[in-house]
């Protein structure tokens, strides 16, 4: 990410991502941004919570006693050591992470091992202010309201809408076209068929992107 010459509030990458200089992004090498993504100030993105696969762990354990080079690589970054770097967070195009939102990869205890899983966020997703997202996957054109909490390993399908202040329980599945709200979140309604049409509700992502940084 070469910073632009002008010291604006936002760093604009080659693919058009607009990232606030005041955002807190950890573990950048484990984060994939699809382009034209906006990350506002004070947003926290925890790319450092990536999954260490079991084979990788074994590799490290095997390599540790033998070669000092491998340990050095593993200390610099695990991604360079393994052929396929583990991705913690993927964000699609035209997604918008509002101020003070927190994106954190989901985690769970599976067979006695506590591990993180990748967080996949689709295109045209809006994450409201102070929202905490720990979902396993967030589909396209999803709207997550202000102060909403999306619990660990939740799945939010395309064109879903999480209302402001909703608490989506861990592991919940929000089907497409559904509106969830409340704590714990329940399906309270459905969005209209026109949801996600460019310029209408759910389709404001391009405009949101355009406005940022001007």
């Amino acid at each position, binding site marked *: 990410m070469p910073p632009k010459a002008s010291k604006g509030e936002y760093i604009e990458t080659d693919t058009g991502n607009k990232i606030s200089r005041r955002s807190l992004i950890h573990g950048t090498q484990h984060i994939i941004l699809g382009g034209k993504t906006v990350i506002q100030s004070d947003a926290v993105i925890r790319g450092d919570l990536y999954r260490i696969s079991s084979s990788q762990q074994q590799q490290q354990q095997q390599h540790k006693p033998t070669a000092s080079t491998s340990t050095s690589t593993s200390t610099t970054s695990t991604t360079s050591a393994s052929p396929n770097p583990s991705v913690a967070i993927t964000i699609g195009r035209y997604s918008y992470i509002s101020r003070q939102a927190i994106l954190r990869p989901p985690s769970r205890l599976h*067979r*006695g091992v506590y591990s993180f899983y990748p967080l996949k966020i689709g295109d045209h997703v809006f994450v409201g202010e102070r929202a905490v997202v720990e979902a396993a996957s967030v589909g396209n054109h999803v709207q997550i309201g202000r102060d909403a909490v999306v*619990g*660990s390993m939740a799945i939010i*399908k*395309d*064109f879903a809408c999480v209302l402001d202040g909703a*608490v989506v*329980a*861990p*592991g*919940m*599945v*929000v*089907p*497409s*076209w*559904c509106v969830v709200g409340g704590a*714990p*979140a*329940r*399906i309270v309604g459905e*969005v*209209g*068929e*026109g*949801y*996600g*049409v*460019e*310029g*209408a*509700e*759910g389709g404001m992502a*391009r*405009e949101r992107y*355009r*406005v940022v*940084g*001007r």
Partner: protein
Amino acid sequence: MSRPFPYAYISCPCANTPVPDPSKKRRSRESPQKASHHPDHPKPPPRFDDSEDEQTFDPRAPRSNFSLYPPEHLLYCEDCHQIKCPRCITEEIVCWYCPNCLFETPSSMVKSEGNRCARNCFNCPACTAPLAVNTLENVVRGGTSQQGPWVLSCGYCMWSTLDIGIKFDKPTNIRTQLAKLTATDSNPARSRQMSRTFGELKSPLSTFASIDEPFPPASGEARADDSSDQSTTPLSPDARFHALKNFYKNQISATSSSPNDPLGVDFGAGFSSPGALNRIMSLYTSSSRLSSLYGGASKKPKTKPPVMREALTASEGFQTPAPDAEMSFLQRMAREECGWDGLASLEQRGFQPPTARFVDELLPLATLLRTKRAKRCKSCKHILVKPEQKPQSTRFRIRLIALSYIPLPTLRPLTMPVPPPAGTAAAGVTMAATTTSISMPVNLDALPPLRPTQLLLTLKNHMFDPVRITLATPAVTPGRVASRVTILCPQFDIGANSDVWDEALQANSATAAATADQRSSRSGAGAVAASTTTNNPPFGVYEKVAEAGKVWDKGRNWTTVVLEVVPGTLPPSSATLPPPKTTTTTTTKITETADNDGDSDSNSDTSSFGTGAVPDWTGQAAERDKQQQQQQQQQQPLQPDEDVLEIPVFVRMEWDSENQIDRPGVSAAGEMVKRELAYWMVLGVGRIDPSVLG
């Protein structure tokens, strides 16, 4: 309203009586049917008749609640050429699916098993969050992990089936396991009956054949062990229901003389059929003799039919509560370990068997299924929306949404400082000076009253034909808080939603093409803001002044016009008493036309508030009689959301379109047909600042 400002709602014309459409295409409009839906409509004359109809849509009228929809919720019927709201469509179920596992359930299974997920999907009985299947023990021995008994646990409130003492042997097919567990738990003697409880909502015909088999022996012996039966745990509610149902079905078939008696087949089907209803009605109207029931009055039964009896024994589903049941409940409630938290709340009990009163009697709830629905026009039965059947698919086979026909309205405040227009002073003062970002300098949640605010209304056309738009708005918004509204350019054209490349190729110079392309690729309002900020230097924006009769900006398929709003003053609330105004303005304004409604409103209100006198409304015009009745309630404090500035705008669009092929005989396809569509929309601008008083 629920949406953040600014918003735009569109009113579906169905809220009013059917409309004599000015356009010729009104074949499928069904006036009598629709009129019958609203028999108590206060204003029978049609509202959208023609331009001379001056009835203003009132966004605050109680009826408006039912006709205003966000644009994306509206559909459009190509046959009726009319906007269709959720009230003017019918729905058909395309498929049933579980919202948790997103598996489709065949509708036959929904009928037989009830509309709950038959797999592993459960909701927490305490908080309704979905339950997860978790293992209790996890022993990893040499690569293979051994996983112990399984429980359902809630990740939200930490409830688990351990709280009610249930563990599962395997992590699959939880629902049948649970059915077995609950059945054997309550009464092992009846387990055969009750293991079928969950799946027992089968078609009545399938169980009909086997009705006699379980009961005759049971009824004999049940009487014997009646007392012991009731002292122990009674039947589970599901089993009891089925026992009762079977018993009465049995009774009916036994007492009914005619084999075709619909009552004997099934309760539901019997009562729903008109013949059965006739029979039941005649029971009450004619003689009360039983013989009239069976076989009708004309044909006398040969023997006296046996009289139906009621359920008597526990095996028949009859239950007498234990004599000390209430006391034991009370004692349990009073006990230390139960307390308030031990009692199930009303919400929780609503989804549980009626006997469940304590939290440790709550059973996990199998997830309710949801449906995907196709939508049809109510009047012409054409399909408007047809989603793909797969539950996971978000695509549609047919999707006639209103947004592809009517222009999409977008409202945004004009952010640049505006020199005060003639007649009003200090317009641009409240607006912040030029800023780098176009974050709103105008706080829409606190609009200063009596100060002109300019708004940009962008209409974006999604049709492939250019559209001519005529906007109309009342000079003063209806209601107590009267704001003045002026659309600076009420008549304009919007370009067709043509191909971007066509547009680029048609443009004259390369640079023009580039800019046009750049602009047109943007969506309406944002493009306006972007173009003004990018093309003009920060202070150059002064040069662009909203002019009456001129379009503010125009793109490939969108046009922006300026709306000038002078928010009215709020009536005084009990909290803030406004300073009384000068009487000179009052008198002059009262003599004026309806334009200054708001001022006079608040004025008389102030005086009445202070002195308790009745507001003087005698000099008002006759057409405001109805309004006067509302003014009687002037003394009332500000109603919720009354301070929201909502502007009703009448939109009339005209365009030439190719004739549809679906109208055979009218004219050949390909011929251009003039069309028009008119509707009301409501622009929610913002909330008027209560603290500032003009």
